[in-house]
């Protein structure tokens, strides 16, 4: 077990190191920040002063070493555009992204499990088939297109929901949240539905497959023979057993919801991390790009590491195979 965890930890550190190299060098070598950040009408002395202030005059490997040293101190550089620490900018926007991602997860569970179970219990019925048709559409429609459609229908044609922004927020444990006000909820609904759509399709499929498997099991037959009501069988015996795979997979998918929020946030002008990275790429605000990418990679590696370790605790075959391999 210790061997396994150590190996995984080392591997994760290696990946973070390699990613930091790729991201830092790539961003620094390919773009030329001097052209973008410094006023083209500035004179030579001014340009040089700016280059010095931004640390762009030093050799690239020195820039990287300084960057790494700073990164360990939690300082990932200052944004060229905002003049604030990049990490602080990201942290400021993280609650908005997390709120959106968690709402999307909630929607996909609350809607997806009943719909998937219904499709699983009556696979040949019209309802079951349309639920599956919906899930296939949810998989193949690009999410930005769905977002545009939502805005067109609900904001432009019907005019019932706001199309962009976050709305009124309220402080809760030091975080700004929007789900506690009506205005905030109205702003949250469309982006959350948009982000949820793909996961919703996934949950429907998982719940349907699970249900079809579970209803054939002996304990369901036994419950039926015992004379339990169909609603009790479905709500207690079937649902409990399909929850395990659904929840496990959704836990794994949280990271990808956060990554995909880039698209949703851009469409709905939601002030989260995703919109920040797209704006930063367009403005070539390198410290923010580097910080965002490193943060996200770090988050993913942590999620994967935790999942790997949990799996190896649950299923010893995984870690034995790994040590042999």
């Amino acid at each position, binding site marked *: 077990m210790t061997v396994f965890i150590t190996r995984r930890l080392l591997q994760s550190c290696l*990946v973070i190191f390699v*990613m930091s190299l*790729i*991201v830092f060098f*790539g*961003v620094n070598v*390919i*773009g030329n920040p001097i052209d973008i950040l410094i006023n083209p009408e500035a004179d030579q002395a001014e340009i040089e002063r700016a280059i010095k202030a931004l640390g762009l005059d030093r050799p690239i490997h020195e820039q990287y070493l300084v960057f790494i040293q700073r990164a360990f101190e939690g300082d990932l550089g200052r944004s060229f555009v905002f003049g604030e620490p990049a990490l602080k900018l990201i942290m400021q926007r993280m609650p908005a992204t997390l709120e959106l991602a968690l709402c999307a997860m909630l929607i996909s569970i609350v809607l997806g499990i009943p719909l998937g179970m219904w499709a699983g219990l009556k696979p040949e019925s019209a309802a079951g088939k349309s639920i599956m048709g919906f899930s*296939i559409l949810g998989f*193949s*429609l*690009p*999410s*930005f*297109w769905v977002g*545009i*459609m939502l*805005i*067109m229908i609900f*904001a*432009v044609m019907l005019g019932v929901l706001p*199309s962009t922004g976050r709305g009124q927020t309220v402080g809760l444990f030091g975080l700004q949240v929007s789900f506690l006000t009506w205005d905030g909820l109205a702003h949250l609904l469309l982006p959350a539905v948009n982000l949820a759509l793909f996961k919703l399709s996934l949950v429907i499929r998982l719940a349907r497959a699970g249900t079809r498997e579970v209803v054939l099991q002996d304990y369901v037959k036994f419950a039926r023979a015992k004379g339990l009501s169909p609603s009790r069988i479905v709500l207690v015996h079937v649902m409990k057993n399909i929850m395990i795979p659904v929840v496990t997979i959704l836990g794994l998918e949280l*990271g*990808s919801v956060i*990554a*995909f929020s*880039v*698209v949703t946030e*851009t*469409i709905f002008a939601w002030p989260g991390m995703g919109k920040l*990275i*797209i704006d930063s*790429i*367009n403005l070539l605000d390198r410290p923010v*790009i580097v910080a965002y*990418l490193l943060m*996200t*990679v770090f988050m*993913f590696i942590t999620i*994967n590491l935790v999942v790997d370790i949990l799996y190896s605790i649950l299923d010893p075959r995984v870690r034995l195979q790994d040590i042999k*391999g």
Partner: protein
Amino acid sequence: MTFATDTAPALPPKVETPFQRFVADFAESPVAVAALATFAAVLFVALAAPLISPQNPYDLRQIDIMDSRLPPGGQSLAGMTFWLGTDGQGRDMLSAMFYGLRTSLFVGAMSGMFALAIGMCVGLSAAYFGGRVDTIVMRIVDLQLSFPAILVALILLAVLGKGVDKIIIALIAVQWAYYARTVRGSALVERRREYIEAATCLGLSHKRIVFRHLLPNVMPPLIVVGTVQIAHAIALEATLSFLGIGLPVTEPSLGLLIANGFNYMLSGKYWISIFPGIALLITIVSINLVGDQLRDVLNPRLQK
């Protein structure tokens, strides 16, 4: 099947090549045939865009800013009818879409082909040589697949910048791992078959065994993954271009057209965004439907 006709000895046995059987199986689903026809039409439009477009939307002499934002069916000052309206620069949407489709399909197909070639070589060698090569390669594949595609593409495009070549590179990097995993999986099964053993006994070279014997037998699952992946690649390219980090404005794909139209959407000028969106949708859905049917036809477990 060729043996099925044995019950009727009076008739000469009907000889059916594997390809004919494949076509017959595929044609069993009318939806799939319709999807294939649709995709063929889309492909034709993309290839013939310069010939069939009412105007060249990127030739500045042919467009007139006075014609901008005309609704569908509107007429230009010169008397030309814009069936799907015009965009903010006065371009005919229909022509812009034909050209956009061309770019989208080109990017999808190019990235798909290169990713397939790379993934195939990597997957085949991992499966054929096994041991350490296999372990290292599959670790890298697993690692990459643990990140969502959009994040990998985002990192690469943040590093590389905009451009047709850049986005193709990013899409190859996103996709190769899927192909590698698929090929390795089926090659591991095929490698243990007798014909590979026989070829090895005959003293054939590694290259010949891998490319002449192993490769043709791992093609079916690869074709299925390939169709699905090309649809994914087109959707991902559209998404990235929509975000403004994919293609440059000089070479607009459908995604970029949608993004341009999005700015006009809130003022009720729906057509600039909607029509390219529908074109994108038709393309992706038709490829996916063809892919679904291919999976059913090529899956040996489902064969009658």
